């Protein structure tokens, strides 16, 4: 894992899309500049909030997974969401994107309430997410994975699907767009391969690229670096920064503090379901509440491969239970998913 927080990554990976660099520099500075005068306190108001969360709670059988009083996410910035295991980060993601329903609370996107919306509606509004465990669609090709992301497809209706003339030209446009994105993510050579044959890192890239096919305003990345080999980490980081250059709002969950320091404009720290601190990256390591929360927790350092596998298995199980799709495989110790990393 990279310990060097120099901005090489951005330029190295951004080379794939040089056009975005020039126009992108300004919004980044804007977000940073806007956040400069914001006090480092929990629940502080942001100058231009894309997402506002109010009094959201979610409990599981008496255990409080999420209890967030107030949280605002700055538009056009990269917000890092960190916290020890079980802090409620993924649950918060699930709530915000409609994959889970809270016990109470409201949240809104661009002033529009998102509570009670199903996941696909949230996504259509422009808030798209990725998953902690990549959800590459194994038996579809990389290009088909990408095309799935395109919005408003005429051929996705049952009856119109039967008349190719209706959707063929749109399909051609989407294919061009998908190939363009694949080139940017250096996956174009793999476009006709089954997604299941990709490595773990390539799947993360594919999932991010697929999310971009929806032309989102807000991109929520759940541990985009988990399980990715170090060589690809820099490239992924570059792509995340790229999103900001293009004016998107990015929220991401990450355990690796170096990564968080490197790319975040703002960091939100969660523990036991609550937001315990927020502020620019440099403020976090000095925060006493954060240090306390991490004491005894084992995720303030990069993971070893073994740890990572175990964490993945745990997380996978808990997510599966949470989403009611558990027990997908009769023995999770031997899931074929890890095949790509072997």
């Amino acid at each position, binding site marked *: 894992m990279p310990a060097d927080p120099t901005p090489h990554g951005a330029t190295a990976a951004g080379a794939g899309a040089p056009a975005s660099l020039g126009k992108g520099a300004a919004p980044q500075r804007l977000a940073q500049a806007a956040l400069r005068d914001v006090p480092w306190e929990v629940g502080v108001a942001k100058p231009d909030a894309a997402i506002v969360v109010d009094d959201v709670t979610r409990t599981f059988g008496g255990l409080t997974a999420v209890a967030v009083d107030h949280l605002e996410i700055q538009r056009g910035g990269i917000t890092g969401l960190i916290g020890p295991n079980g802090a409620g980060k993924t649950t918060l993601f699930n709530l915000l994107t409609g*994959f889970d329903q809270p016990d109470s609370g409201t949240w809104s996107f661009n002033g529009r309430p998102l509570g009670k919306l*199903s*996941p*696909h509606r949230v996504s259509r509004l422009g808030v798209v997410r*990725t998953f902690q465990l990549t*959800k590459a669609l194994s*038996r579809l090709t990389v290009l088909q994975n990408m*095309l*799935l992301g395109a919005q408003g497809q005429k051929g996705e209706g049952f009856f119109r*699907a039967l008349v190719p003339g209706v959707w063929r030209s749109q399909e051609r446009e989407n294919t061009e767009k998908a190939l363009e994105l694949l080139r940017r993510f250096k996956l174009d050579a793999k476009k006709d391969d089954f997604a299941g044959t990709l490595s773990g890192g390539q799947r993360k890239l594919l999932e991010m690229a697929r999310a971009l096919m929806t032309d989102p305003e807000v991109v929520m990345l759940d541990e985009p670096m988990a399980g990715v080999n170090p060589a690809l980490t820099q490239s992924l980081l570059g792509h995340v920064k790229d999103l900001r250059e293009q004016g998107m709002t990015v929220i991401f969950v990450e355990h690796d503090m170096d990564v968080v320091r490197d790319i975040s404009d703002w960091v939100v720290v969660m523990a036991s379901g609550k937001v315990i601190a927020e502020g620019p990256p440099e403020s976090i390591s000095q925060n006493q509440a954060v240090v306390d929360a991490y004491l005894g927790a084992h995720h303030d350092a990069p993971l070893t491969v073994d740890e990572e596998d175990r964490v993945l298995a745990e997380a996978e199980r808990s997510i599966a239970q949470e989403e009611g799709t558990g027990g997908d495989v009769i023995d999770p110790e031997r899931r074929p998913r890890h095949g790509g990393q072997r």
Partner: protein
Amino acid sequence: MAELIDAFAIALKAAIGFQAVFLALLALGLNIQFGYTGLLNFGQIAFALLGGYGIAISVSQWGLPFWVGVVIGLAAAVLLALLLGIPTLRLRADYLAIATIATAEGLRLLFRSVSATPVTNGTRGLSGFNQDFIALAPWDTAERYDLLGTRWSGADLWVALVGWVLVALTCLLTWLLVRSPWGRVVKSIREDEDAVRALGKNVYVYKMQALVLGGVLGALGGMVYAVGTGSATPDQYQNANTFLAYAALILGGAARVLGPVVGAMLMYFIIQFADTGLRTLISNGVIPEDLLSATDVAQIRFVLIGLGLILLLVFRPQGIFGDRREVMLDAR
């Protein structure tokens, strides 16, 4: 040797008869549901039952025209799919499996029950509803015809012909659907429905469409069977047929347009060949009567289907023609 050729001819006839059409249509429906969308419908026979009885009750009991019966049967299948889908399609896959298997058994018990007798005529079932359809045949249905060394009644030939046309049209429909963006969405749902949700697709609606379409195909299969046999009894629609269709689907290759058709034909061929062959061997005394009596042969078929399903899924989950690498990617 002559007996072997006879057995072969009889098996060949079974592979192209209306029973194979019935199985192919069930399997084509399952292919949409299970092969492409990943839905576990373990009660496909319930849709077939509604299709068959839709015609039988409409014509024999209510005196309606044949084609109205067809519409009623299809409507009943759509209704059942909606009833099953609404509660279960938001839940994990096994809930649909349990609900469908329960429905298949429940509907059959209901149709054969004493209280349903005024409508369904109980266990004895209904007959005499297919004359209007048979009368449409362009040849004399009372005659017998020679085909591939076996004798066919004109009526059987007509039902089989119409049935295979139906199968061909279904294959065309499947082909059109699965290569469209609609097909891409349902295949993605099979792989990981949450990923599809996160990309703004209403997964529930797609699953429902697949369930309804597959159910309608099942109902068509049931109609072909009822019209072919000329009667509808509840015990024609035992749920073992659903699993026979699964075996055919997996044998021919799931998620392939022609997989279920090839599988159904092969399945009937194998079953009939084994059946006739075993009976011959028993009557010749090659297999001693103590070990296996002629009456046990009918059960042997289900034993073989069960064994075949297990062996296929353990050793060749991709079917006989499929590509194993693709199946190995299946994380489910």
